[in-house]
C-alpha cells in the first residue's frame, strides 16, 4: 500500500465518512467493471456493487489483512457475485466456475466504443478459459499486482503469474489467427474484384 492509501485505510478504520466517500469515488467504477466482467448484467452489477460497499462498511476490521484497498473490495465483490450465483442456482452446489460465455459478455462490448483492434482483443480475452480471463481482468484491467490478484482469487502469486503467462500466449495465438483470417478474406476479396 502507498502512503495515501495507508492514510485512507487509517481514516476508514476510524469511521471517517469522508474517507468512505473517497473509497467510493476511487473504486466503484473498478468494482462495477469487474462484476460486469464476471458476467453480471448492468443492473445486477450495480446492485452487487452496492452490496459490496454495504458489506465493506460492515467489515472495515478485515482491512488490516488486505493486500490493497482495491483487492479488498474486489474480493468482497467476487464473493458476493458467486454467492448470488449459488443462491440463484441451488442445484449447482459447489459451482465455482465463471459462467460459461463464449464471447464473455456482448453487453460489455456494446457499452464501449472501441476501435476494431480493441474489439478483437476484447473478444479474444472472452475466448480464454474463465480462470485465465479473470486473472487477465484483475491484473491488466484492474491494474492489480500478481500478489493482489492472488489475494482476490485465493491463489498464490506464482499461480497468477503462470496463468497470465498462459493467457498471453493464447491471446497472441488467437489474435494472430484473427489477423490471418482477415488477410485471407482481403486476398479473396481482391481476387474476386474485376481487374
Amino acid at each position: 500500500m502507498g502512503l495515501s492509501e495507508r492514510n485512507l485505510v487509517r481514516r476508514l478504520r476510524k469511521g471517517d465518512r469522508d474517507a468512505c466517500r473517497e473509497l467510493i469515488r476511487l473504486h466503484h467504477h473498478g468494482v462495477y467493471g469487474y462484476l460486469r466482467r464476471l458476467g453480471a448484467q448492468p443492473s445486477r452489477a450495480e446492485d452487487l456493487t452496492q452490496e459490496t460497499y454495504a458489506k465493506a462498511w460492515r467489515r472495515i476490521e478485515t482491512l488490516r489483512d488486505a493486500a490493497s484497498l482495491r483487492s479488498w473490495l474486489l474480493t468482497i465483490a467476487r464473493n458476493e457475485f458467486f454467492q448470488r450465483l449459488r443462491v440463484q442456482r441451488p442445484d449447482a452446489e459447489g459451482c465455482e466456475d465463471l459462467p460459461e460465455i463464449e464471447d464473455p459478455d456482448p453487453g460489455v462490448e456494446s457499452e464501449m466504443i472501441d476501435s476494431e483492434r480493441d474489439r478483437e482483443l476484447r473478444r479474444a480475452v472472452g475466448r480464454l478459459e474463465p480462470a485465465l480471463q479473470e486473472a487477465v481482468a484483475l491484473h491488466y484491467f484492474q491494474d492489480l499486482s500478481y500478489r493482489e490478484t492472488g489475494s482476490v482469487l485465493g491463489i498464490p502469486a506464482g499461480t497468477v503469474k503462470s496463468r497470465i503467462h498462459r493467457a498471453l500466449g493464447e491471446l497472441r495465438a488467437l489474435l494472430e489467427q484473427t489477423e490471418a483470417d482477415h488477410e485471407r478474406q482481403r486476398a479473396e476479396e481482391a481476387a474476386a474484384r474485376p481487374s
Partner: protein
Amino acid sequence: MRDKELKKRLRALREPAPSTELGSRLERGIPDTLRQPESTGRPWRVWTMPKLAAVAAGTLATTITLWLVTGFILGLFGPPVVANVLAPVAAATDRIQAVHVVLRMLTREGEDFSYVNLGGEPERVEAWIEWPQGPGEPGRARMDKTDRIYNFDGTGTVFYHPKRNEAFQGRGRGIDHDLFWPAAWVRYLRSIPTGEVEVVEHYENGGKGSLVLRQKGAPVDGLDPSFLGDFDREIEVEWNTDTHLLTGLRRWVYHKGQRVLFSELESIDYLESVDDEIFRLDLPGDVRWGGVKDAPIEVLALGPREVAIRFFEAAKSGDRETLELYCGSPSMVDWLLEEAHRPTELLFLGEPFRGGNYPGVYVPCRVRFGKEGRVKEYNLALRNDNHQRRWVYDGGI
C-alpha cells in the same frame, strides 16, 4: 505480436462504466456509524517499552487463565460438543428421502415462517418435503400455514393466500426448503461456532437422546425483535438412539426475561416419497394473481427512499397502476386505496436502514392517513430480491 505490445494494449482496454447515479447511491448507503475495529485511545508514543511489556505479559497471563477455566467448564478442549453429539443424528437424517412434519409455531397471518408472534396463539404448520434424489433433481415441497400455502411441484412455485384469494407464482423454489428439513436443522446446529452456543443439557438413556442449547440473537439496532434470529433462544433436540433419527425439536425465545415456546415439532414421519396429489394445487377460477411487475427502466435505479415517496404519492392520488408497480399484492393495493386507509400526506421520511435478519431495508416514515387525518409512524419494509432487483413494498403498514 510481442508480449510488451500485447500487455500495453490490454492495459489500455477500458472496462464498462456504471450509471452516473451509482456513486451517489453508494454514498447514501454509508452508515451513520461505522464499526470501529480499534480503540482510538492514548497514542502509542506515550507508551514506553517496559510498560508495554508488562501490560502485554499481564494481559497474556489473564487471557490464558480465563481461556483454560472457560475451556474446561465448557468442555472446549475436545472436539466441538454439539457437532460431536449430533454427528450420528446428522448422518441418519441426511439419508432421509422425504418427510412429513407438523409443527406448532408462534407465528401469525401475513408473516413468514420465522416471525415470532409474542402474545399470540401457536399455529399449526404442516410440511411435506421430497429432497432432490440426484444431481440436477429439484425435489418437491409443500407447506401449509393458516393463511397461506406454499407449493413447489418441482417446476415452479405458487404461494396461495386462501383468505385473500390471492396467489403469487415464481420459477424457482421460492423459499428455502431447509426451513422444514430435519437434516438441515441438525446441520445448522452443528455449524454454530463453539463460542456462539452454550450446551445447557445433554443426556442419552432409555433409547432417547436429548441436547439443549442456548444461542444469542442478532442485534436489531433499536427495533423490537421480531424474527427468530433476533432473539436469544433455547433449542432442544431429541432423537432415537437406535435409529439416530431426529424425533423432537422445540425452540424457545427469551423475551423480557421470559422463556416463550416458539415452535414445537408435533409429529414427524420419515417417508420414501410423497404422494403426487399433495403437490397438486387446485386454485379457485377467480384467484387474483399478484407479484412484482416488470417496471420501466427509470424505476429500476430508484433507491428505497425514492420508492417509498412514489408509493405514498400513488396511494394518495389513487393511482392504482403506479401503486401496483411498487406493491405486488392486489389486496394490499385495494386496502390502501380505501378512503379510511389512504395516505393523505407524507410528513417525514428517514434514512433506510437494515435490521435483524430481514433481507430488505426499513424506511422510517410518518404519514397522515384517512379522512380524520390520523398520523402514524411506520418502518416501511422494502425488499429487492425480485427478478428485477428493484425495491418494492413488503410490509410495515
